[in-house]
């Protein structure tokens, strides 16, 4: 469970990124965090594992106050929080396996990670996760040899290798095509369901958010302006987050995307049967 209270972040430049944001994410809930660019979505997510230092307010992860930890305890806390990044943020010149194993860095001493001799159960777990995300054949490839969708799957495996109690997901689909975006979102949500993981998914695509999240939180200029189930995200609510826009047309376009995808899958299945 994650609890955020009165979170405020003011950058050194004086920019106010977040103003007194507060909400609670119970176990197993997938939260879609939406808002225009510059609304503070990215800052909010990074405040949770303190990649960005909050200016004031508190964050609790299962009763542990994250905002009050020293360097060592912070590392302890970070290893319980998995994070998935926008541009995958894999270490490109390392192999897929090393990237997944890097999820265990908070658990193993330096010399073990330096000599790449991770405990047997960590390695078995990495193999299992790579199998789960469908990359069993790419274990020894270098990360920069993979396609965008595959890289994001490695990113997911790395986050899960940490045995996280919370997933932070920063724009997982920003650099992917519509079809791959759906697949990745589906995978993330499925995994959260399997493990009862709470997750905050920061996403600019409203339709994807509505389709996959249990709950939507809307940020506008660093303030929380919407919090509710996807069904309650009316045009009025969207306008309060994003400003005036033709939402009906946007939804229609997205619906067509989804239809096209379904059709393609149907075609593929037909082909399979024919073979």
């Amino acid at each position: 469970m994650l609890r955020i209270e009165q979170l405020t972040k003011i950058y050194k430049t004086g920019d106010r990124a977040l103003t007194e944001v507060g909400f609670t994410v119970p176990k197993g809930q997938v939260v879609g965090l939406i808002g225009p660019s510059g609304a503070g979505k990215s800052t909010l997510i990074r405040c949770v594992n303190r990649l960005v230092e909050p200016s004031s307010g508190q964050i609790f992860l299962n009763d542990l106050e994250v905002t009050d930890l020293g360097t060592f305890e912070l590392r302890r806390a970070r290893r319980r929080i998995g994070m998935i990044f926008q541009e995958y943020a894999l270490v490109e010149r390392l192999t897929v396996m090393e990237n997944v194993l890097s999820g265990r860095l908070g658990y193993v001493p330096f010399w073990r990670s330096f000599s790449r001799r991770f405990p047997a159960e960590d390695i078995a777990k990495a193999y299992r996760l790579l199998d789960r995300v469908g990359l069993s054949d790419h274990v020894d490839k270098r990360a920069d040899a993979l396609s965008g969708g595959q890289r994001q799957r490695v990113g997911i495996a790395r986050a899960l290798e940490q045995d996280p109690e919370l997933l932070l997901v920063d724009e997982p689909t920003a650099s992917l095509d519509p079809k791959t975006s759906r697949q990745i979102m589906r995978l993330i949500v499925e995994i959260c369901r399997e493990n009862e993981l709470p997750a905050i998914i920061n996403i600019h695509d409203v339709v994807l958010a509505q389709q996959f999240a249990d709950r939507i939180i809307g940020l506008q200029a660093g303030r929380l302006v919407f919090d509710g189930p996807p069904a309650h995200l009316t045009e009025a609510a969207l306008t309060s987050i994003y400003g005036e826009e033709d939402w009906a047309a946007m939804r229609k376009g997205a619906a067509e995307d989804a239809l096209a995808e379904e059709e393609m899958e149907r075609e593929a299945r037909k082909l399979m049967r024919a073979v």
Partner: protein
Amino acid sequence: MSSQDTTTTVPVWQHRMPKTRLALWFFWLLIVATFVYCWNLMTAQTMWVFVYDAPTAAADLMSRAWPPRFSYMERLWKPLWDTINIATLGTLIGIMMAVPLAFLAAANTTPSRLLLRPLALFCIVTSRSINSLIWAMLLVSILGPGILAGILAIALRSVGFIGKLLYEAIEETDISQVEAITATGASKGQILNYGIVPQVLPAFFGISVFRWDINIRESAILGLVGAGGIGARLQASLNMLAWPQVTLIVLVILATVVVSEWVSARVRHAII
């Protein structure tokens, strides 16, 4: 043509504003004036007789220096081996000193911005400003003539070169990869090992091989000031005015340089 049209129909169009043109003109004038001034200062002591005499001197030198004395080659193998050792060992020692310095000097890895970073930067700048030949003179004067002075001279000069390029490479690493490793709860050492080192490793190898190539060139002449290698033979031959030997030594140095350039290009190509 359209450009002609514009110049005729819109007569006020000019390539540059009058003010910029004036400034530019003044700038060129300044360069010419400085050049003339410097030229006069520089040539104040020049004996023009020698300069006018240069073509005959050149012809004379050529006739004395050609053909190269190939039989001298047998006495060049050992100095050549020494030259290569000076370059290689010097590069290795330089790398050993430069790597920690680079991590101290890079803004994103330095443990202390106020104390260690300026200190590391100062070491790098000092090492870079002093030519390896000067380092060699200094070390010969301190340690006595020999290969050791040469190796250390090459090492001390390489530190700045490798250190500078490496710390720039470290500063240019992709932050998002480092951020991702940080987010897993990794310690400082692990972030370095997993987030930064893989990113700078190709640059590191490239820089080292490049510097080795330069060092082969430089170690060939260190002997002129007594730091061993083939340059020592050059110095001896020059002192005896044995020009055919000088020609041979210059040819050998040229060949070594060409070979080392080829090797370094191949290795760099293989790495990247």
